[in-house]
């Protein structure tokens, strides 16, 4: 498929041209405009990724690119034909409410298609923004000369495909800044709702800056309205709100963790059918900083592609990455992680587990890159998969590239089925086969869920696991 055959390619090229012509970028700096222009050039060269590209070898997105999408949320409202018209409605509100974590005292930030709904009334009971935390919309931040630098970082020339596309066309999202030494009294719960009454490409951009010695705890929920209806007890997975509208999310988050700062970051992805979710997160860690990421993907969304890149830019950092993906139906869930050990004496540990049901496909690609200067690196990685159905598949690929000689690195990857012996043991005590399988899936997931430090969040995730354990495994 050449770029010209993809309707969305044409749509974004036209969109960018409209953007340049309409003076829609407001007070954006000339550097940011240049960044957009060069990112757009790179996207125009690369187009959308195909399976010929090493990073997309197992993830064929061609089937979803045959559909037409309108560009949502262009800067300055340059979208075609009022694609941004649909924002808050009762379904969106209900989805947001249902994403809330019971018993969790958090400050709620609701984003609909990347736009912060400050007055939506969701989470009003949560009170004021915690002291030491500053929240801005990216629509404001990108036009603020003092903050512009966070968006105009010259890229290394490798940026292409979705990240280049996001940089060229992003308009809104959430900008978080935590003051140096601030210890906010409660976590932020960012609820991302994606919705449209027609097929839409939405491209949020988020930047979090956590200053020296500060701490930030964030829970992110990614949902579509119909998912919430399904979770309320209706059968089957939901479809995107507005009937058959498809939502393609191309989200980019950059997190800067300064010296001695700590970030605890949980992502819970439960959007419904009709969603294609491409989520890129780059974390830049400075000296002695700590970053923990817990990523949970559940059945629903047709495509989930997570790129989580950890750049260890200074020494003595600590990083923990935990992931659990539960895929079902025809779903394709792809987790690409990169831990880039650039400096000495950094520690990274990664554990990703997958449960593949029905006809789902899983992809795990975990790259650990240890630069020549990164002596005394400790880097560990583990990926375990439980393939439950004969029609499900998993491609698991650990990649270690080590150029330093005084390091400790290990990796492991397993793919297995239910242990027949464990299953028989449970059944021999009167536990029905389906319940027994449910217990074993829970047990498998436990290694990851037990790592969540906030009990309310752990309970919430366990509840989602229970909700999605299927009745039939055929």
């Amino acid at each position, binding site marked *: 498929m050449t770029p010209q055959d993809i309707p969305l390619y044409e749509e974004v090229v036209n969109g960018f041209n409209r953007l340049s012509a309409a003076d829609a970028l407001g007070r954006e700096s000339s550097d940011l405009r240049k960044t957009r222009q060069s990112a757009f050039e790179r996207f125009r060269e690369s187009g959308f990724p195909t399976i010929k590209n090493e990073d997309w070898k197992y993830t064929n997105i061609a089937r979803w690119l045959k559909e037409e999408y309108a560009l949502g949320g262009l800067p300055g409202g340059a979208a075609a034909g009022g694609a941004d018209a649909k924002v808050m409605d009762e379904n969106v509100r209900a989805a947001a409410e249902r994403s809330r974590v019971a018993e969790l005292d958090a400050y709620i930030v609701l984003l609909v298609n990347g736009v912060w709904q400050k007055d939506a009334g969701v989470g009003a009971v949560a009170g004021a923004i915690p002291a030491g935390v500053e929240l801005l919309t990216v629509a404001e931040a990108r036009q603020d000369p003092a903050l512009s630098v966070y968006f105009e970082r010259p890229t290394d020339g490798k940026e292409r495909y979705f990240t280049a596309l996001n940089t060229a066309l992003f308009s809104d999202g959430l900008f978080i800044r935590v003051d140096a030494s601030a210890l906010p009294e409660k976590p932020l719960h960012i609820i991302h709702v994606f919705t449209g009454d027609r097929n839409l490409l939405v491209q949020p951009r988020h930047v979090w800056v956590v200053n020296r010695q500060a701490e930030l705890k964030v829970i992110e929920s990614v949902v579509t309205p119909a998912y919430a209806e399904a979770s309320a007890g209706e059968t089957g997975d939901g479809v995107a709100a507005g009937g058959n509208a498809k939502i393609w999310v191309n989200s980019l988050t950059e997190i800067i963790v300064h010296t001695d700062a700590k970030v605890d970051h949980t992502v819970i992805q439960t959007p419904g059918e009709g969603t294609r979710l491409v989520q890129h997160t780059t974390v830049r860690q400075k000296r002695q900083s700590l970053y923990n990421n817990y990523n949970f993907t559940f059945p629903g969304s047709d495509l989930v592609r997570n790129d989580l890149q950890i750049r260890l830019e200074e020494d003595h950092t600590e990083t923990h990455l935990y992931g659990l993906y539960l895929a079902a139906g025809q779903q394709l869930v792809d987790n690409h992680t990169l831990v880039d050990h650039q400096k000495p004496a950094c520690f990274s540990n990664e554990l990703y587990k997958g449960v593949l049901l029905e006809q789902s496909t899983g992809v795990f690609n975990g790259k650990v890159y240890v630069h020549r200067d990164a002596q005394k690196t400790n880097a560990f990685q583990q990926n375990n998969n439980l393939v439950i159905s004969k029609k499900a598949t998993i491609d698991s690929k650990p990649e270690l590239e080590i150029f330093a000689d005084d390091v400790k690195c290990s990796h492991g990857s397993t793919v297995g089925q239910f*242990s027949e012996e*464990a299953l028989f*043991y*449970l059944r*021999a005590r009167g536990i029905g*086969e389906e319940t*027994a399988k449910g*217990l*074993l899936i829970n047990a498998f997931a436990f290694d990851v869920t037990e790592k969540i430090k906030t009990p309310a969040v752990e309970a919430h995730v366990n509840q989602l696991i229970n909700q999605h354990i299927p009745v039939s495994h055929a």
Partner: protein
Amino acid sequence: MLIIKNLHAGVEGKQILKGINLTVGAGEVHAIMGPNGSGKSSLASVLAGKENYDVTEGEVIFQGKNLLDMSPEVRAREGVFLAFQYPIEIPGVSNINFLKTALAEIRTYKGLPPLDAKEFLRQSKEKQKLVEFDAKLVNRSLNEGFSGGEKKRNEIFQLAMLEPALSILDETDSGLDIDALRIVSKGVNKLRSSNNAFIIITHYQRLLEYIVPDFVHVLYNGRIVKSGTKELALELEDKGYDWLKEEAHENAATI
């Protein structure tokens, strides 16, 4: 309670049980002894419903119902309990949740309301005491990191909680030191009643000093070649199995 008639079974085409006949009445304790490879554990597995065994001939009637038609979980709910020779470790499934789930499913099957949390806790404490099962182990992952003795005691603890009609103890004595053996036996003896029955599979006579059987059967080459009372176990202890093997071969030759 249990009637086994001419039971033939095997794995992957290999015949292991070659015509077992055994009747177990309520209130009885039967010991099944025999040399390694005679089919003792296979008999236990077939009764519990392990799916890799094919039953080629014969029938098993449990409390008037055809046991062989039932799935493993239905057998358990009907009242068959197998204490495993090698209990499985299942990290991530807590011992107590596992028991709660099992008990709830069994009670639902019997049309009984679920036990309330308080009553469950009370029973659990009482039964833990019975087998001197460490309270700390109850909340741990199922058998994970348990010693051999702790695993076996956990089997008897589960037995006590689930109150089956027929308990099959598959080499529960193997790997137990004398103290653990005493504790396990004491637990079993307390659970014996006129309403339930036990099949005790063992290689050694030692366990039978503590749990005194009403009947002893010797299994050899897939058949019960000799049955008797507890004195038979003592005879086996003295003379070993060889004389029985010879007798069995002679019998086979004359047939």
